[in-house]
């Protein structure tokens, strides 16, 4: 029992990941509005659909704004709440806007006492026929939005395209993090084998690569499903998708290499060297090349790391334990394979 504490820890962390990852609600947000375009000078009534919102319950003090920039915004002069998920806000748009553009995007902000403030960026496009930014600045004087409520309680961020599928951050992403940690440990054992010629180190490396490849293939499959309902298709030929598939093929060739040789010692030595080179190729494939071009994955295309609304502090409280949990779970499976292989080896020795 004492020896197996890390298996128990891994399972407990996974249990926590699944419970917290599935049960913590999403922050209230705006799903869609109608109409999303209007002309300057008219009075427009916008229907606002909310997700997890409490428009009716938080009816007192419900407010809405169309925000132009950091200083200028327009407050709704009339709000009609239909139910918790649907409200209508009427805005009297001024004749001119303080801008020289013909079409100006404005963000929508809704605030009530229960949900706090929700923002839909570039929600409404206002077109103006005559451009007079000086007159517009007079009609829309700088007025800060103040007295916004904040949501109480633990939530995951609301992201418009992801919605609930943001929870895949605790299942799809830790598979890849776990895979990299497991492959790195395999490199350590391969190195140990090359130094000492210890057959057990070779078997440990083999088992770890087995589990790493399992995680990688599961990562590709789960990523494809997530992509189908986020980016529109299973395989978007996104650079990170392609490069991780290439990395998986490199690691699959490891098994081909092992199978191609009969001499046990030669097999172990060559595959150890191959695994070290495969890991050296894995890092640029996953972390360097996707950053050099445009990628659909967050944290790529010149924008280092993910953070902000993709991974806030509440998500980190589940995300990091998820990585440790999935890694320990993978190590457990690897250990079972290793014990099987060692038994087999013992059997043939005698």
């Amino acid at each position, binding site marked *: 029992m004492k020896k197996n504490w890390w298996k128990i820890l891994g399972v407990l962390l996974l249990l926590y990941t*699944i419970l917290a990852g*599935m049960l913590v609600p*999403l922050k209230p947000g705006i799903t869609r509005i109608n109409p999303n375009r209007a002309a300057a000078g008219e009075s427009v009534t916008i229907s606002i659909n909310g*997700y997890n919102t409490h428009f009716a319950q938080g009816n007192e003090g419900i407010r809405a704004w169309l925000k132009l920039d950091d200083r200028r915004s327009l407050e709704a002069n009339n709000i009609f709440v239909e139910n918790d998920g649907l409200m209508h806000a009427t805005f009297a748009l001024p004749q001119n806007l303080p801008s020289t553009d013909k079409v100006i995007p404005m963000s929508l902000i809704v605030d009530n006492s229960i949900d706090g403030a929700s923002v839909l960026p570039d929600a409404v496009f206002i077109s103006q026929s005559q451009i007079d930014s000086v007159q517009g600045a007079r009609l829309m004087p700088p007025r800060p939005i103040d007295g916004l409520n904040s949501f109480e309680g633990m939530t995951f961020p609301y992201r418009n395209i*992801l*919605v*609930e*599928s943001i*929870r*895949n951050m605790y*299942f*799809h992403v830790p*598979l890849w993090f776990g895979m990299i940690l497991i492959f790195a440990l395999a490199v350590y054992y391969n190195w140990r084998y090359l130094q000492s010629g210890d057959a057990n180190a070779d078997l440990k490396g083999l088992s770890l690569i087995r589990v790493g490849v*399992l995680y990688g*293939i*599961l990562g590709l*499959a*789960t990523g494809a*499903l*997530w992509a*189908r*309902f*986020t980016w529109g298709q299973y395989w978007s030929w996104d650079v990170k998708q392609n490069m991780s598939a290439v990395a998986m093929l490199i690691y699959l060739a490891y098994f081909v290499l092992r199978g191609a040789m009969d001499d046990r010692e030669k097999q172990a030595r060559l595959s150890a060297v191959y695994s070290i080179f495969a890991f050296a190729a894995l890092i640029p494939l996953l972390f360097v090349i996707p950053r050099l071009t445009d990628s659909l994955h967050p944290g790529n295309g010149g924008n280092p790391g993910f953070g902000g609304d993709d991974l806030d502090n509440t998500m980190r409280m589940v995300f990091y334990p998820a990585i440790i949990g999935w890694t320990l779970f993978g190590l457990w*499976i690897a250990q*079972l*394979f290793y014990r*099987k292989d060692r*038994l*087999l080896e013992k*059997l043939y020795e005698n």
Partner: protein
Amino acid sequence: MKKYYFFLLFWIIGITEALADSGAYNEMMYSSGKIYVVLGVILIMFVGIIAYLIYLDRKLTKLENQINYDD
């Protein structure tokens, strides 16, 4: 036996594609804030890990049989 696993895989993909054509699959996956995408991801991982454990189980059975022959 391995051949049949491949057939099973293609069969599952085929069924999924047929469902996708019917529109009911799309409708379900996009409903309730795409929570079914998360369910699908968890199911893929569950099935993948279980399949791996079955593979290990069969290898161990083979090993046990070999030990029994030696006795």
